[in-house]
């Protein structure tokens, strides 16, 4: 055993720790009936996970340029489940852990008047486990399992305020649509297994190139048809999970209905996890392989079309919303559109833009939802007309909101401007898709107008009612906001350094099928020889 096994083990430990804690928390809540104990327990687990992902991230970026592989139960790759951690995955893993931790800290005061918080934290831990599993896994069926873990926790969290009718309605809608998506993904996996005879991602990539891992044989069916159907159905299912138009419509119902920290997680990273899985399939595994190449190209163009549609729909519908969280949720559709447009280009510059936008948007959107949560916590209303003027009494929250809004709308030199600039560059480089830059600029203007509508209502507009009783949100809620706001600024100003040192290596690792496959081959060989 070497260092690398330990590091890969640390990554694989994170989802397990989270799921273990998720099962343990209800038992703990039977014994200890104090809210503080549940919170301490959750916070400890999340802190440990964050530290673990930080170690993995640091190791991956400093000492290892190849993906690391962890084989569960020491079964060699195509037989057992493997977790493959490359630089991109470690980056997204760090993002997930950091945001869940922030949302958890924010929840402590936000959920103080609600009953049943042990279930809330249980679902939150399960949610984290699902997302981490989706990102780290190297197995298409395990991806299905983890998608289900993530989605079922998400359905529960959306329905958490079960006394309000809209939460229940949104959760049912979300659950129906989400189950359709996961079922279709499952069917897709059947096609892949039926034709390739394997569920391992690296093995799939190898079999497409007429080669195999040491244990398995050649494909058992027609891999041309099998991989086409698999890829198309998986693309559809994951685009639904990622809420890319025309599969976006569940999002504006589901995300606002959840408690605000959960909305921050749903919009911030859950949709990004689905996009990340899509990147894995379209850029790492099936890219450049001869038989499926036309399909991948077709799906890339489909993704660009869907991305453009998303940006236009998201930005125009943002402008007409009256519900603060719904408005921000439409902003998610808009930004997912940008990310999809970057992924659809299927080259390095597009992927760099997408990856950087994933990070920036996750942080900015979490900030906006949490700031909206602070307003809602204080006033008890989500309607913009009832929030008029409250921002004047909450200066820190409003300042954080403004930073987040400007960052997301793309005001230089804040974070999302830099990633949009990279996307813009990628589109100009791409030749005949260059006119789409007009869409990017236009939708950015819309986004600015949309986010500033909230700012206008909560701060600039003359209050229509007496707001003297409104106070600044509790410190435990303001601190995460300020941390995220400063991250928005830092990511923008330090963008040249961050892009060169973090984003580009991450994107390169995602595009590197060779190393991804080699890691699996070496691990298989090592396990077979070592016994």
């Amino acid at each position: 055993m070497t260092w690398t096994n330990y590091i890969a083990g640390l990554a694989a430990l994170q989802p397990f720790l989270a799921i273990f804690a998720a099962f343990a928390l209800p038992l703990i809540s039977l014994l200890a009936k104090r809210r503080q104990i549940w919170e301490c327990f959750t916070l400890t687990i999340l802190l440990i996970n964050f530290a673990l992902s930080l170690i993995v991230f640091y190791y991956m970026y400093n000492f290892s340029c190849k993906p690391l592989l962890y084989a569960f139960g020491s079964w060699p790759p195509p037989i057992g489940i493997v977790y493959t951690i490359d630089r991109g995955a470690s980056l997204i893993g760090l993002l997930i852990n950091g945001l869940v931790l922030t949302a958890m800290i924010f929840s402590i005061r936000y959920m103080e008047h609600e009953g049943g918080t042990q279930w809330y934290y249980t679902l939150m831990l399960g949610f984290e486990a699902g997302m981490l599993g989706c990102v780290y896994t190297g197995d298409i069926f395990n991806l299905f399992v983890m998608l289900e873990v993530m989605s079922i926790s998400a359905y529960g969290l959306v329905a958490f305020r079960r006394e309000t009718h809209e939460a229940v309605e949104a959760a049912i809608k979300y659950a129906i649509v989400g189950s359709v998506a996961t079922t279709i993904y499952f069917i897709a996996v059947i096609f892949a297994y039926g034709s390739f005879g394997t569920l391992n991602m690296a093995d799939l990539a190898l079999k497409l190139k007429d080669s195999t891992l040491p244990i398995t044989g050649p494909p058992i069916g027609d891999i041309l048809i099998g991989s086409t159907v698999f890829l198309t159905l998986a693309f559809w299912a994951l685009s639904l999970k990622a809420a890319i138009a025309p599969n976006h419509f569940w999002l504006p119902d589901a995300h606002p209905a959840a408690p605000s920290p959960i909305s921050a997680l749903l919009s911030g990273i859950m949709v990004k996890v689905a996009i990340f899985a899509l990147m894995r399939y379209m850029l790492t595994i099936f890219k450049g392989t001869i038989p499926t190449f036309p399909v991948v190209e077709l799906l890339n163009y489909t993704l660009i079309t869907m991305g453009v549609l998303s940006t236009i729909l998201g930005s125009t519908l943002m402008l007409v919303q009256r519900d603060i969280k719904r408005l921000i949720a439409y902003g998610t559709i808009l930004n997912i559109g940008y990310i999809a447009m970057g992924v659809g280009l299927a080259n390095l510059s597009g992927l760099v833009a997408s990856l950087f936008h994933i990070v920036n948007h996750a942080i900015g959107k979490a900030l906006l939802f949490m700031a909206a949560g602070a307003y809602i916590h204080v006033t008890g209303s989500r309607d913009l007309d009832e929030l008029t003027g409250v921002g004047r009494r909450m200066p820190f929250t409003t300042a954080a909101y403004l930073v987040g809004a400007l960052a997301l709308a793309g005001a230089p030199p804040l974070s999302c401007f830099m990633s949009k600039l990279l996307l813009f560059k990628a589109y100009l480089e791409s030749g005949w898709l260059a006119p789409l830059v007009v869409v990017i600029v236009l939708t950015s203007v819309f986004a600015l107008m949309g986010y500033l509508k909230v700012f206008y209502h909560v701060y600039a507009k003359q209050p229509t009612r007496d707001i003297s009783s409104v106070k600044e949100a509790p410190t435990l809620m303001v601190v995460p906001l300020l941390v995220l706001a400063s991250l928005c600024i830092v990511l923008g100003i330090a963008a040249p350094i961050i892009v060169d040192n973090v984003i580009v290596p991450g994107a390169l690792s995602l595009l590197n099928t060779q190393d991804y496959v080699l890691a699996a081959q070496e691990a298989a060989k090592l396990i077979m020889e070592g016994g």
Partner: protein
Amino acid sequence: MPYELLFETIVYPGVIFLCLVIWLTQWYHRKVYARMQSRIGPLHTGPFGILQPIADYLKLFFKEDVSIEGSHPRLALTLISIAIGSLVALTLMLPITPFRPIVAEYDVMLAMYLLVWPTIAIALIGMLTPNPFSAVGASRIFSMTLAYEVTFVASILTPIILSTAIGASNYSLYHSCLNAWRLWFNPYTIIPMTLALIAALISLQCKLLSKPFDIPEAETEIVAGPFTEYSGFKLALIIGLHDLEMVVGSLLITMLFFGGFTPFAWLPWYLAMMITVIEYVVIVTILTWIKAMTARLRIDQALVIFWKYILPMAAIALLTSIVITYLVA
């Protein structure tokens, strides 16, 4: 290295230089506008009234700055300053910057954002005062933004894409300005260039909120639109922003479509400079001419005109330039 940037921001072609240009442009604009309407225009302040714009600014500078209850004077001030700053920064990206212009590959998007900010800032400062006229004005600006920003962006993109197609720049504003004038001598590129130039001029007119698109600040209907509640130094800044938009917009069109001095770089520098000034004056005259010639449209008429004629014009120019890029490649 930031010292050069500082010098350029503050002196030339930054704040001080732009103040001079605003002064002269405003004087010229008013004089010509008045002559076109059979008036005389500024006359008494200085020779031919040349000091009149300065007198107006000074008057506002020394007037009291009253802000109505419930408005946000500091926020408004910051917004206008940022808008002015973004136009100054845009000037630093043009080839008139002597030492160290801000230039990078693919910096067009930056230029476009800098061009959009003033519009948004003007609308926002209208929303910051509790006055129905300013809210209506802001609402009208937002409604029209969609129409004319797209047109302006598309028409600015056309020469940049075309000059990249001929291999002269890599989507940077600076290099496009240096080389885009060559496009007028090619029978294929002359069509998109003409269309883009017309669309750019008309949408610039709309950006400047001058006739026939002065709907957001229609003084007979809504007093002064977004600016109704502002006075003193802030009003001076707002008017300065408007005048600066005219200067920078005309300068951008001069440099991007006609290259300014670059086609005549073989002439002595003072002659090349003179030619740049003449081109600039011609652009300003055209804008003034449109303003004097037309009356205010209704907002739905303006939107329909933009969507039916001007936007398709810019779109055709953009698409043609993409096609030409492919034919060249």
